[in-house]
């Protein structure tokens, strides 16, 4: 199961990275065109706004899979593995609740915006895209968190959460 989640989350994260690169290149081209022929790419800001929503949505599952969502370790550091794992399990399940609520509500938001036919100001991108892009990432994150949480509650998962390497500012 872990292997399956890992593969999907990895593809999500890599796709997000590619999206971030595309955003960077688009912005650079726009800056160059503005400087050279004073004609930036139409709607570059709107594309970046959509792009960042897509990126973050694609990044979320990997972050949860590697347990890079930061926790406070300070008060429970001395606990035995079993109660610690149980607390982590509850934490993961609560995270799943948060992501499911956000996914469901954002999907409802997509519906509403689609019906209203809202578009962005300059190049008229349909606004519901931004909403729709968030739902898959949030939903997959919730699934991963439920799976992790159930394992942690049964004491099967003794990984260390919030691995300090790479994450955190």
């Amino acid at each position: 199961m872990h292997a399956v989640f890992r593969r999907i989350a990895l593809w999500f994260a890599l796709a997000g990275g590619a999206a971030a690169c595309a955003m960077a290149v688009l912005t650079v081209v726009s800056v160059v065109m503005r400087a050279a022929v004073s004609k930036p790419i139409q709607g570059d800001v709107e594309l970046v706004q959509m792009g960042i929503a897509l990126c973050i949505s694609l990044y979320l599952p990997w972050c949860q899979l590697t347990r890079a969502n930061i926790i406070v370790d300070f008060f429970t550091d001395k606990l035995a593995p079993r109660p610690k794992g149980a607390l982590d399990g509850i934490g993961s399940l609560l995270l799943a609740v948060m992501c499911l609520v956000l996914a469901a509500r954002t999907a409802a938001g997509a519906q509403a915006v689609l019906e209203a036919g809202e578009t962005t100001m300059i190049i008229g991108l349909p606004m519901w895209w931004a909403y729709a892009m968030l739902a898959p990432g949030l939903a997959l994150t919730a699934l991963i968190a439920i799976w992790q949480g159930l394992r942690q509650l049964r004491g099967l998962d003794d990984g260390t959460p919030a691995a300090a390497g790479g994450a955190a500012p």
Partner: protein
Amino acid sequence: MSPGMLGILIFAGMLALMALRTPIAVAMFIPGAIGYWAMSGDLALLNLLKGSAVARLTVYDLSVIPLFLLMGQFATQGGLSRSLFQAGAAFVGHIRGGLAMAAILSAAAFGAVCGSSVATSATITQVAYPEMKAHGYHGRLTTAALACGGTLGILIPPSVPLVVYAILTEQNIGKLFAAAMVPGIFATIGYIVVISILCRLKPELAQPSAAVPWPQRWQALAAVWPIAVIFVVVFGGIYGGIFSPTEGAAVGAVGTFVAALARRELGWAGIQRSFIGTAETSAMVFMIFLGADMMNSALALTQMPTRVADWVGHLQVAPLWIIAAIMAVYILLGCVMDELSMMLLTIPVIFPAVMSLDLFGLQPEGKAIWFGILVLMTVGIGMTMPPVGLNVYVVNSIARDVPMNETYKGVWPFLASDLLRMLLLLFFPSLTLGFVALFFK
């Protein structure tokens, strides 16, 4: 129940969840959502949540976070940190403690392309630690210098915590970056002075290495010119108003990618690692944003921020003492909490109060920038101060033969320089604002 009481309950619920290992984002989101529901009913809550995630994730200015992180990752995976350290070591390695100074200098230079202190610590430790160990540097000095040097990753722009502060307080990211320049240079000098004093007091801490001949020094320096060019273009462009911070970050990411490719050290595996590293940190930051948004919406309904501002405004205490007290609380909070969450949680409550104080007769914008840099200093301190200090963990996970306690003993002299710098910036706002005034009229 009165709104004030409910506000306190929400806050207490959050702290309890945090202490019990719930991810910080969730510990803010769930009590916030329950509090919001209790005050304005389920329809209002459902309606808010419909758009709240999209509203947060489509903020143009926030795109600088993944872009600057990507830039730092490319620099790390492309081996730029190694050239930086080698250049530093070629110039100052022959001084007693010189390799530690080179580590500080290379961390500062790396901080100019990286906005994360953990990433800076990790990458500089990987290249500098083996060298310092081979030259018989004392473990305590080595790891402490690396952990504290890592904070230059956020003290010198770009800086993720500073971007978060700018978004929370609706300030100009470029101006905040400019304001961080002089304090960042102060920090670099301060750490070098600390190393030099330590080595003078206890010469056994570090052995000087052989001096490198001048031609080789220039050669080592020549290898780092891409970083200098990228820094000047990105920040020159942002400060000079040629492009927005997002555009600067995009130019930096593309430029660093090209520089890393040109060194022939960045392959497909390295690119993958860059993407994954960016994913982890970006997702973590935005998750906390989503949680903090919910919490702050609820707290705003309880009018807690207004009350706190009102209360602080009527305190019969000199404003500067209030700021000093806030800084002290931040340093203490930083001991048990992650610094980013600390900012997201407290800035919306504290900032209006700070803005209502009369400080040196500063204009609102100047006050906001100056306060932001002070907050950034406390974030830096929190990254290294016992008993938690994330940077110390990171350095010790690489330098495994030095016990963590040794590092914690070693960071105190560096923390003393942090404190001294903070006091300077507290009493002389012009140190922070002077550089801003130079660029932004």
